[in-house]
């Protein structure tokens, strides 16, 4: 039996119980009927501020993006307000028919999968480690995590760029001086596989603090007693994790993993900066591709179409996550 089963909220029942409760003991001076209406409205009132804020900022831009993707908007149309010609699905067919686009997609997917798996594995490992170490070590480690996390992207990327520099990088120096490999002058970015390893390191290093701090917060919700009880019942480390820890941290883990997927899929800054603001074709991932189409080739419509295709591709991941959530919803 899992901890989550034991503690899982049961909203419909809860609400029912609440209504019954308030029926039995109506608060003083509050008539029964309006109270009930208020109860039904309450959740809407609660989500209203968040919903309105999101709608105000994103709704129209999203509509606009969709509209743009069926037009041909260049700088002239954007600036002068001249009506942009409608082109139907042309932007989409152009992009989907472009061989370069698909190689970019594959590159992005592979890079994303590797980064997400590495980030989540390392992040969860650190979070569980944090639970088990002494307070002073944990504080030290968390401070390092936060400091790493709070480093601006530009700065963090510059530092990794120096580490990997062909002429004065620490990496080449250590390899040549201490490990006997002649790496002096070796350019890590000529071979995109090596280059992506370096970029992946920047991405994972940058994302691990968020993942481990968040998962650590989730782990604090796992009741110690349950873990101990499970261990006493003969569950091994894996068993305790599977039946006690995992159910509790699962929602947070899934959310963090989903976010990592989204971020790594849209990765832009790290690659852009590490390649000196002009990434080579071998380093073009979707984020860079859509940026180049929108800002560098004067086709905001193509940029918009690529964003929408990206959103559709990502919804694949999102749907899995949503189904999980909604399944929980059904159970509830």
């Amino acid at each position, binding site marked *: 039996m899992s901890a989550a089963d034991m503690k899982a909220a049961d909203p419909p029942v809860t609400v029912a119980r609440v209504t019954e409760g308030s029926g039995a003991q109506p608060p003083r001076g509050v008539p029964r009927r309006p109270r009930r209406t208020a109860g039904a409205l309450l959740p809407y009132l609660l989500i209203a501020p968040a919903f309105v804020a999101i709608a105000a900022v994103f709704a129209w831009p999203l*509509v606009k993006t969709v509209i743009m993707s069926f037009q041909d908007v260049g700088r002239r149309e*954007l600036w002068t307000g001249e009506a942009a010609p409608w082109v139907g699905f042309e932007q989409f067919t152009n992009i989907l028919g472009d061989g370069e686009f698909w190689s970019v997609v594959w590159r992005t997917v592979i890079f994303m999968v590797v980064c997400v798996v590495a980030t989540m594995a390392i992040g969860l490992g650190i979070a569980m480690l944090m639970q088990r170490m002494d307070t002073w070590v944990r504080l030290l480690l968390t401070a390092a995590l936060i400091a790493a996390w709070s480093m601006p992207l530009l700065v963090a990327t510059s530092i990794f760029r120096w580490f990997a520099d062909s002429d004065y990088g620490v990496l080449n120096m250590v390899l040549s001086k201490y490990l006997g490999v002649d790496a002096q002058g070796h350019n890590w970015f000529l071979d995109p596989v090596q280059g992506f390893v370096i970029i992946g390191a920047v991405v994972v290093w940058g994302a691990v603090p968020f993942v481990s701090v968040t998962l650590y917060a989730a782990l604090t919700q796992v009741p110690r007693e349950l873990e101990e009880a499970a261990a006493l019942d003969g569950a091994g480390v894996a068993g305790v994790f599977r039946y006690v820890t995992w159910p509790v941290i699962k929602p947070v883990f899934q959310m963090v993993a989903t976010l990592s997927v989204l971020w790594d899929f849209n990765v832009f800054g790290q690659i852009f900066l590490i390649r000196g603001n002009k990434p*080579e074709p071998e380093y073009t991932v979707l984020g860079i591709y859509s940026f180049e189409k929108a800002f560098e080739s004067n086709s905001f419509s193509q940029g918009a179409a690529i964003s929408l295709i990206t959103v559709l591709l990502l919804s694949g991941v999102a749907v899995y996550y949503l189904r999980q959530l909604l399944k929980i919803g059904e159970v509830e």
Partner: protein
Amino acid sequence: MKRKLIATVGVAGMMVGIAACGSDDSTASKDPKDRKETLTVWLMSDAQSTWPELVKDVNDQFKAKYPNVTVKVQYQQWADKAKKLDAALAGDKYPDVVELGNTETMTYILNGALGEIDPAKYENSDTWIKGLKDTCAFEGKQFCVPYYAGARVAIYNKDMFKAATGSDVLPTTEADLTKALDKVGAKYGKDKAFSPLYLPGRYWYAAMSYVAAYGGKVATYDETAKEWKASLSTPEAQKGIQHFVDLVNKYNHGDKTKDEADHANVMANEKTALLYGNGWEAGSVVDSAANGNPKLKDKIGTAGMPGPDGKALPSFIGGSDLATISKSKVQDLGEEWIAAFTSAKSQEVLASKNILPNNTKQLEPLKAKPETAPIANAVPDAWFTPIAPGWTAIEKKETLEVMLLDIIKGKSVAEATKAADAEIDQLINEES
């Protein structure tokens, strides 16, 4: 419901934007004292760091004439200025005057973002440096004003040359220069990372200078077909590229696949005796605020870069232009501000900081001044990238850099230039 409302607001906002496009001429005849508008100027951060007093002077001057006009100078950063400007021009809070690098003006001109200007209103406009003036012109009309120019020169470590060759003057012919470089290499070559001449393989501005030296061009305009055509695979251009690549392979002992971004750092670390770079890079080498090495102060010299066949190497002419935005309601004020900011007196201030002025008249005295002679002398023979609608896209696609990199990695010049030509032909006539 909510969405619809927001959509309506959005459309209404756009309408206002369109309505605001028509320029309003009625204000032009007003008394200067009655003008109460705000003039927003976007200058690059260089003005803030290197010539802030000029900005202040011009603003004071402007204030004296238009006491009630507020001039707002907003400093921009090279990294993302284009994005900001692209976005700003789509909204209602766009600048009235903007500084543009001379390689980026064409995009804005072609898309109608810049207002036409009358050169007669600007001092020395008859002698504007051609490389800058051309980047502002389209179909016989002028859309921006040259601001300052830059040229590339040889930057060398005098001590190293003296120690290796006995002279701290850079040879004036390439034949003598390579002999000197061989001696420098022999003297300092024990350090494996030392390059007698640090010429990075991806440095396409340098490569194209050698192309220009042999009479080649990146692309030529066909008057009859009204079309640009790539010409990197012509024999002249191929000779130039081969010459460049040979120099890289012979004298660059660092990572050959880099671009010119590390120039100053390599020289500051005394890992090279000679660079081919922007005039101001000589300053960066010794400036501690620019990661330079103050110990090299007074040891760094500049000179004209010798090119093939005993001639000087033609330099790429860089620089900045100033333009008014066509939607601006205070275009006339913008023009006037630019006129003051680029006046002979203002250019004097730039020249005093060893920055090349926008006109050849004020360039003359700089040719006599030892610190500026090399850069000033590089201007007359200078070349510029094709002023073609699709050039920006080619630069963004790094066609030339990829070509050079391929050659460094072993592809033949003939093959690589052919591939580059094909890509250039595809892009160069498309408006971008």
